[in-house]
Structure formats: structure tokens, C-alpha cells
């Protein structure tokens, strides 16, 4: 009775979103830390917007953006002869947009926690910016980044409002787990809804639980390292 398709689709969408979120989140946080520019406060506010806007509103804005008459939708149909609206790609876009602020904020905090002296020391030893970033900044910021990644994954996995707006609800094609839960619950099919809820909860719970255990072990390790 239970369909596996929404579960598989959801995990795929969340993982794909995660890749985009990781790249964008880290890039934006890095750029904001490294360079000073006038409109910084503006960008800062813009990056946080998807976190506070109701997802349905985010979804509506995305619909205007990637819809047939939207600028992005037009570019896609004109140059790539394809469309993203009502496809799983739209779900990935929705997941990326709503999870982005979580990744950005976590990464920003993680970067702030990195002591500039280490980076400067690396620079005095002749390391390029690229090398400083990968061998000093990233390893030091890693725990914060992982926390951001886990939160973003969970957020993208549970995304409903924006997803249903742009990906539509096409069973078997774009119906993700939260959508399946919503419609099962609404049509009084509480058995299916409950089962889906258990599944999505287990996935998210495992991810966050693993994060906590991992962070704890890491702290222990670094304490020992400090001692000896």
C-alpha cells in the first residue's frame, strides 16, 4: 500500500539541494567575510529572507521567476528548450532556496570562529589564498559547516510550501514526502500519513543524532590533542 517513490524522490531532492546549498552557502559566507562592500547589509538581509518568509510566498516568488513568463523560465525554454516548473528540478530549487539561510548562517558563524592569525601565518609562509582556504580555514570551520549541512538537509527534506507551488503535486513525478503526508492526512488516510511521518522523522532524527555524537567525539579528540 505504501508508495516508496515519494521517499526516494525526497531523499534525492534533499541531497541535490544540499550540494547547491553547500556551494552557495560557503561561497556567500566566504565572500561576505573576505570583502568589504557598500551593500553588505542589504545582502545579509536578503540571504536571511527565505528563513522568515512564509514558504508559500517564497514559492509564489519562485513561480514568477521560473514560470513560463518568468525571466528564468524564459531563458530555460528559449536556450535549453526545457522547463523546470512542475519537475523535480523545481523541487530542488525550492529546497535549495529555503535551506540556504541555515547553511549561510552556520557557515558565517563557523568562519567567524576561525582565528585569522592561523590564516595570516599560512600567508606569510607563502600559501596562496586558495590553499589557505582549503588547508586552514575549511578544516578549522568544519564542525560548523557540518552542522549547517545537516540542518540544511533536514530543512530541504521537510520543505512543503514552496515545493508544492513550483513542483506542483504530480503523484509519481513530483510528489515529495511532505506533500504525500499532507494529502494523506487531509484525505483521512492516517495510516499512510503516519507511516510517512515515521519515515521522515527517522531520517531527520538519525541525521541530527549523528551530528551530535560526531560533534561530541570531535570535542573529546581535540581536548586530548590539547592535553598532549
Amino acid at each position: 500500500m505504501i508508495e516508496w517513490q515519494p521517499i526516494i524522490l525526497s531523499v534525492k531532492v534533499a541531497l541535490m539541494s544540499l550540494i547547491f546549498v553547500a556551494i552557495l552557502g560557503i561561497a556567500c559566507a566566504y565572500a561576505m567575510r573576505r570583502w568589504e562592500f557598500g551593500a553588505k547589509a542589504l545582502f545579509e538581509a536578503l540571504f536571511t529572507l527565505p528563513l522568515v518568509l512564509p514558504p508559500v510566498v517564497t514559492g509564489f516568488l519562485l513561480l514568477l521567476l521560473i514560470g513560463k513568463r518568468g525571466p528564468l523560465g524564459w531563458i530555460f525554454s528559449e536556450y535549453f528548450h526545457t522547463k523546470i516548473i512542475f519537475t523535480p528540478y523545481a523541487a530542488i530549487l525550492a529546497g535549495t532556496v529555503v535551506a540556504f539561510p541555515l547553511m549561510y548562517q552556520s557557515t558565517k558563524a563557523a568562519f567567524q570562529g576561525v582565528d585569522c592569525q592561523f590564516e595570516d601565518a599560512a600567508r606569510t609562509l607563502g600559501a596562496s589564498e586558495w590553499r589557505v582556504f582549503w588547508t586552514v580555514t575549511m578544516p578549522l570551520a568544519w564542525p560548523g559547516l557540518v552542522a549547517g549541512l545537516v540542518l540544511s538537509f533536514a530543512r530541504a527534506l521537510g520543505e512543503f510550501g514552496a515545493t508544492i507551488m513550483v513542483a506542483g503535486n504530480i503523484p509519481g513525478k513530483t510528489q515529495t514526502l511532505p506533500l504525500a503526508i499532507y494529502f494523506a492526512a487531509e484525505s483521512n488516510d492516517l495510516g499512510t500519513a503516519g507511516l510517512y511521518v515515521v519515515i521522515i522523522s527517522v531520517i531527520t532524527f538519525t541525521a541530527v543524532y549523528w551530528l551530535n555524537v560526531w560533534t561530541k567525539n570531535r570535542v573529546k579528540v581535540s581536548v586530548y590533542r590539547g592535553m598532549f
Partner: protein
Amino acid sequence: MKKWILLAITLVIGIVLTGCGGNSQPNQSEAKVELNVSAAVSMKDALAEIQKNYQAKNPNVTLVYNLGASGTLEKQIEEGAPADIFISAATKQMDDLDAKNLIDKATRKNLLENKLVLVVAPNSTLAIAKFEDLAKSEVQKFAVGEPSVVPAGQYAKEVLEKLGLWAGIKDKAVLAKDVRTVLTYVETSNVEAGIVYKTDAAISDKVKIVAIAPEGSHKPIVYPAAILAGTKERKAAENFLAYLSGPEGQTVFEKYGFTMGK
């Protein structure tokens, strides 16, 4: 200067005092009543106008609307959400509450009727003039409410099944979570056509009605209304329900595309 300030203060106090005295009298004569109405979201605009008219006439009554999909409202009522009156967009939800003895059966009536229409964007160049045209290849996607949840979707599916179309075109259907979303998809041209209530099409100037579902292709779309068994404002609820089906209610409802129930 001082005199002017004194005069101003006196004036303000005078206005405030007389203002209070004038307003408070009718309020004290009747106790304030708050009436919770859970109604299908497709009645939103008609109900908003009725709220204005009714509260102007009955200043002691405050109408509090909870608008949503009928299935959601039903669930909320089952879970004990505060509601005095329930107006559903289909009989199913009312029947369910009826079976659970959550409504006052004697007060149940078919308040309104609605029709189902096929809509397209006004600038659509596709030749869509009847429901059968949904099967054409130019129609890549069309939107209807999710049949298991949205009554309008339930009726749409029924019409399409009756016309022998559903099995062939259901892969092109985007199943929206409410009628408003169907309209949004049509308005923004992201689907070639949508099936909504006549009343919904009537309030959007960005869609155009191209066909009305043929007589007999679906069960009559009735909006049953009833007072809930758990109400504490029985009298006020009865008055409001009578007002809705009376001439003043009818004027507003017909303006928004409804037909009065029989």
C-alpha cells in the same frame, strides 16, 4: 498661548467623554457575541462582504471566520476547534460530521449551489473551448484540485471520468492543494487550463471561462451549512444562518456567482 493649550485640552477631553458615552450605550444593552464560522475558502469574498453588512446591522455580533479547505475544517472541528457554524463546499465533509453527531442535524440545509468551469488565461491562443479539448496535445499541463482533498478537484475528476477523459489525461494533471493555486497556475500561464468553480473564476479577472461543465456530468455542487452541536451561541448562530439564506445574503452570494440552494 497657555489659553490656547488649555482650550485644546478641554476640547479633547470633551470629545473623548461624549464619544465614550455615545458609543457605550447600545453595547451594554446586548451582550457581545463572538460567532465562529468555519467555511470553505471558496466563499471568502462573499463572506467578507456579508461580514461587513451583518456586523453593521448587528453591532453586538463579531463574526470570526476560519476559512480553509473543507477537509481541513472538518478535521479541525473533529479535533475540537472552536466553531459555531460549518459551511462545507461538499456534502462529504458534512456527512462525516453528521455521522459523528458533531452537528445539529435539524439545522442542516443546502445553503448554496455552484458550477464547475474550465478556465484559461485571457491571452491564451490555444483552441480550448470544451472539456474534451484537454486531451489535445497542445495542452501540456492542466490544473485541478487534488481529488481526495479538494472538493472542486473531486467534481472535476467526476466530470472528466463521465466524459471518458480522465484515464487518458491524468498524467498531465497538476493536483493543487486548493482552488486558489489552480487559478494562480492558470493566471501565470504555467498550465494551459484549469478546472475551478464558477465563483472562483468570477473573482479573478486574469482568467477567462471557456466552458461550463455539462448538466448532469457531476453531482450537484451544494454547500451544506449547519450549526455545530457544541455551540454555545445557539441563538446568534440561528440568526446568522437565517440571514445567509435570506434576501440580503442572496444578493451578495449571487453577485459572487453562487446560486441559492433549494
